[in-house]
């Protein structure tokens, strides 16, 4: 754009340097204005408003036009969520625990799988590339609600998944995927005979409204199902981003590697992965933000159940605001979610840039 404007100004040599700069500036703001306005009205103002609401006890119903729709309560909502013992604290930390397990499960899996898929569909020897690219990308452009419903049919107790596994292994006891609050780590510990009763005193110690034993539960079976669903749907988008980056890697780098006698694995490990680092940063950031905000699949499939093991922070925001009529609390929860995502993004940026320096 800068080139274009300077090109036009060359044709009009009358304009002085200063007025040229000013008109460029005006044009710039002019082009940015519509987007900035939308950004302001639909993002900045609501964010500031919810930050303010989080300091009140507004129930979300009383008209804001009425005389005194809410009282100012300072940081009471935050105190309830973080420090004061009770259901609200327990629910918040439960949702934090569930969300973190969800993020830790989904983000690495989807990033690695997306990279592998991108490398595969980028191979020259692959026939019907278009077909594979479309097939892998398809879940990403399908409505998440529709996919959630299909997964619900597949994963019901008598659904496709259980029947298929049952046909392969006749001894398999059907898992109630969508209604099983057992934590995966608990199940694994159970295989070694470890349970709450014999694990030792550390397991029953309380921390932030929950026993340590509950903290280490891992995602529940139902959460695991939703994690599989979400990984599958987002791989496509991530794959396309990787694919674009792969095609940007100049062929001469690969040729050089070939001349130096690098094999396929070495080329991938020493050339492709390092050159894709900026893309990986982007993909992981997108993944982090997306997974921390997971809502729609939970809303459709489990509504936070069974036994609150799929209660995520975003779902807690919704249920506090609309089911519990505590909009101030919901706003505080949302602000905390914002801080968490922000902190994780910064942290991850640090880690990636540090490694880039090496």
């Amino acid at each position, binding site marked *: 754009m800068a080139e274009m404007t300077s090109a036009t100004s060359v044709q009009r040599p009358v304009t002085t340097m200063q007025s040229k700069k000013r008109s460029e500036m005006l044009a710039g703001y002019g082009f940015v204005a519509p987007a900035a306005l939308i950004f302001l009205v639909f993002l900045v103002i609501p964010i500031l408003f919810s930050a303010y609401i989080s300091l009140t006890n507004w*129930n*979300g*119903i*009383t*008209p*804001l*036009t*009425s005389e005194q729709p809410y009282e100012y309560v300072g940081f009471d909502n935050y105190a309830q969520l973080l420090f004061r013992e*009770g*259901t*609200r604290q327990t*629910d918040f930390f439960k949702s934090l625990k569930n969300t973190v397990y969800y993020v830790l499960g989904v983000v690495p899996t989807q990033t690695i799988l997306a990279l592998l898929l991108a490398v595969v569909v980028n191979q020259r020897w692959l026939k019907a590339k278009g077909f594979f690219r479309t097939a892998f990308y398809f879940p990403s452009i399908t409505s998440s609600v529709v996919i959630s419903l299909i997964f619900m049919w597949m994963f*019901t*107790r*008598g*659904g496709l998944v259980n029947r298929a596994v049952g046909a392969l292994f006749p001894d398999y006891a059907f898992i*109630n995927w*969508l*209604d099983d*609050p*057992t934590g995966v780590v608990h199940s694994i510990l159970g295989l070694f005979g470890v349970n709450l009763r014999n694990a030792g005193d550390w397991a029953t110690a309380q921390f932030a409204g929950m026993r340590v034993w509950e903290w280490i539960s891992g995602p529940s079976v139902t959460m695991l199902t939703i994690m599989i669903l979400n990984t599958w749907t987002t791989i496509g988008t991530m794959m396309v981003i990787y694919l674009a980056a792969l095609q940007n890697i100049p062929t001469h780098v690969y040729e050089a590697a070939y001349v130096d006698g690098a094999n396929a694995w070495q080329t991938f490990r020493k050339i492709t992965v390092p050159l894709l680092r900026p893309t990986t940063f982007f993909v992981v950031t997108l993944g982090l933000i997306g997974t921390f905000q997971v809502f729609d699949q939970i809303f459709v499939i489990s509504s*936070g*159940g*069974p*036994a*609150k093991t799929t209660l995520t922070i975003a779902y807690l925001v919704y*249920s506090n605001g*609309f*089911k*519990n*009529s*505590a*909009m101030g609390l919901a706003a505080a929860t949302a602000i905390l979610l914002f801080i968490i995502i922000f902190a994780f993004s910064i942290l991850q940026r640090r880690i990636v840039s540090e490694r880039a320096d090496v």
Partner: protein
Amino acid sequence: MGKSRFLMVALAIIMLLALSGVVAAQDDVTIRLAGWSSSEAEDNALRAAVDQFMEANPGINVEIIFSPDHPTTMQTAFASGDYPEVFYIDSSKLPDWVAAGVVAEAGDNIVDQDDIYPSLQEVFTIDGTFYCPPKDFSTMTLQYNIDMFDAAGVDYPTADWTWDDLRTAAEALTGTNDAGDPVLGLVTPAELPRWLPFLYQAGGAIFDADGNVTMDSPEAQEAIDFYAGLVNDGFAGAPSAVDSGWGGEAFGNGRVAMAMEGNWVINALNEQWPDINWGVAPLPQGPAGQATMAFTVCYGVAADNAHPDESWALVNFLTGPEGALMVAETSFGVMPARASAADAWIERFGEDMSAFVEGADYAHPWVLPVGFQDFIDAFNDSLQQAFTGQLLPEDVLTTSADVANEILAR
């Protein structure tokens, strides 16, 4: 030239606006009626009733607004300060909305209020103030699969069935079907309103007369032991245990012999599972006699309302004695809220369904104080864990009683 042209256009626009303002002032009063769409046929019935009202009351325009997630839509409308004049209120939402000051008191605006079932009036009465006349209602009854009872040689449920009878029958009806899938005697969702009838049948309650939480009473213990015991002994289970999303689906698919659903199950079974051969009985009697739950929705009138008289006229038209008859005639299961229209409903649906209507005499309202969603969640979650054996039945009571006390202390 350019300037005067602009002025002329501006003048024309201003005149047009002014004119339309005059027209609007002479025009009818518009009442917005907000609710949710239940089925196309029922929506058409409501539209027809509203058309009749508009015909009888020239000068009043009614605009029907359906939204799929009515409570959420209404909440945002309330918050904005500009909300519909008349709207559905689900009984469970009434305390919140009344506390927010958006619902007008009924006062003496209701036509022939005594005709409305007392148990339903109680639902929409908060601190002695009656707010809104019920649109219609449902009660929970026991549905049973006649073929499965015949095959197992078990007598059909009757009005004098006790908890023991229910348990014995559920045990006898539990087994596997031809495809080898498990079949349960009874479907028991892990939800508070499904368990509450048992609490009331045992003589317990969530609160005593002074508003103290009595979830840890011996009666509550008896009720939870019975309900969770059915599941722990394998005669009953949540819908998901038999591959279903809700009790009606489990019942319709023949995976349970008995279900405890409300009137909504009638249309669902007739439409989606027409082949199933089923009957209806009242819920069994507990140690303290009969009890069931009433689920109901009312027509609320906006507190901040420019046309209260017209709004009440519409509400009375829809819920008055004639409106109740109209509900009975066009209903797809739900019952009119007036005793005078009960016979019309039974005539339409058959004598077999009378258990639903009789439930109105001993039904308890499904309504809890403001902020009790946490209590419902705590109860449901711990009951779910009691079903899988991770918690004991008494843990459900202590957990939910703690949460209830915490909410009251807020």
